[in-house]
């Protein structure tokens, strides 16, 4: 049995290490800033990390699990590291932290627009809600979505009419 303070300290060390683990697809942002860490729990036997996939079919999930297991294991906090993939709570693009949004922009990605507030819209009404993105290079809002699907499941392709630069947006989802 450890004191609450000691337990909290160990959890803090896990969070600090997680904040240094990059997203495998966009290395400029950490898994913490991406919002994919659901929870951290530490006891004498194990460290348990809950991982929230950005997209259900995200092929980077396995890589994230391996990296987290290895890096947290090397801290020597507990004999076992368990990385559990869960959709409770579901990851949404609103989970990206303010720092994470800035890191995305510096990596050349427009951060996702905030999700609309209020109750979910009806099936075909949602079609009218086109996401918008500010150009990560010149800041212009004079942009158009070229393709809601991009090089990975979580990215859409845009074009900036002002600086004439194509860019990607981390999808709002």
């Amino acid at each position, binding site marked *: 049995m450890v004191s609450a303070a000691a337990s909290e300290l160990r959890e803090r060390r896990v969070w600090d290490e997680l904040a240094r683990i990059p997203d495998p697809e966009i290395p400029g942002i950490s898994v913490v800033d991406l919002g994919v860490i659901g929870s951290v729990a530490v006891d004498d036997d194990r460290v348990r990390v809950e991982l929230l996939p950005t997209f259900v079919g995200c092929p980077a999930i396995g890589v994230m699990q391996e990296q987290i297991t290895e890096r947290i294991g090397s801290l020597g906090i507990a004999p076992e590291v368990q990385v559990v993939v869960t959709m409770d709570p579901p990851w949404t693009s609103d989970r990206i932290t303010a720092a994470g949004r800035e890191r995305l922009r510096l990596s050349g990605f427009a951060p996702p627009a905030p999700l609309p507030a209020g109750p979910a819209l009806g099936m*075909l009404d949602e079609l009218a809600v086109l996401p918008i993105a500010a150009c990560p290079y010149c800041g212009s809002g004079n942009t158009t979505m070229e393709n809601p699907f991009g090089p990975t499941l979580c990215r859409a392709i845009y074009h900036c009419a002002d600086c004439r630069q194509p860019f990607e947006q981390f999808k709002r989802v």
Partner: protein
Amino acid sequence: MTAAGEPQPLDDATRHALAELLLALADDEFVIGFWDSEWTGIAPMLEEDVATSSIAQDEIGHARALYELLATLTDDDPDRIAYGREPDGYRHAALLDHARGDWAFSVARRHLYETADAVRLASLATSSYEPLALLAGKMRREETYHLLHADAWLQRLAGAPDASGRLADALRSLWPDAQEVFAPLAGEEVLDRAGILPTPLRALHADWQRQVRPVLEPITGPLPDAAPTLDGRERHGDDFRWLHGEFTMVARQEAGATW
């Protein structure tokens, strides 16, 4: 991947019916995902190559998550369920049994499927079986992009001289089989009572028809009355047998292979 969520105690009848539901959902996503992947490299334009490939990856990812949920319920292996069955063991709706056809045919099928899937997922997101509710809610966010894509193409082809005829023909020919997304499942009444299926399939079907007729009929003219049939998820033809041969090729050649 490790499935999360505390297992809920289910009696045999409920577990059996839930397994039927999960298999139908998973096979729908799995099979349409593989048909979509048939456009990779040959879609009408580069942007569509990217889009259909990305959609295919989404759908097969959804299928994987559903097969994993099913495997924990039936103490099975998700890869065996996905790749280890004979063609007759698959439970995708008849809508998904056809080859991809031309672009208008693919757009027509995708629109019929995405709208039906949206109605189904909206209900399942409130399922009393929490692992399914969470997954359906998550899938729904992603499917919104597919719906947007399918509807944009539907409208685009509907306004083009040659394409509009092909689109209307495809919609009319697929209309009867599209109903089968809501085909009755064995033991469905158990799921209705338990709140696992919060809205009966019959009611979801009526809801879907009410929403899509005003969108489709300006393109097709009046669509006939049509309803799901008992074997709507069991009619498999040569198109699917060919696709099955393709997607099981690696698993058959190298049993237990991972990639």
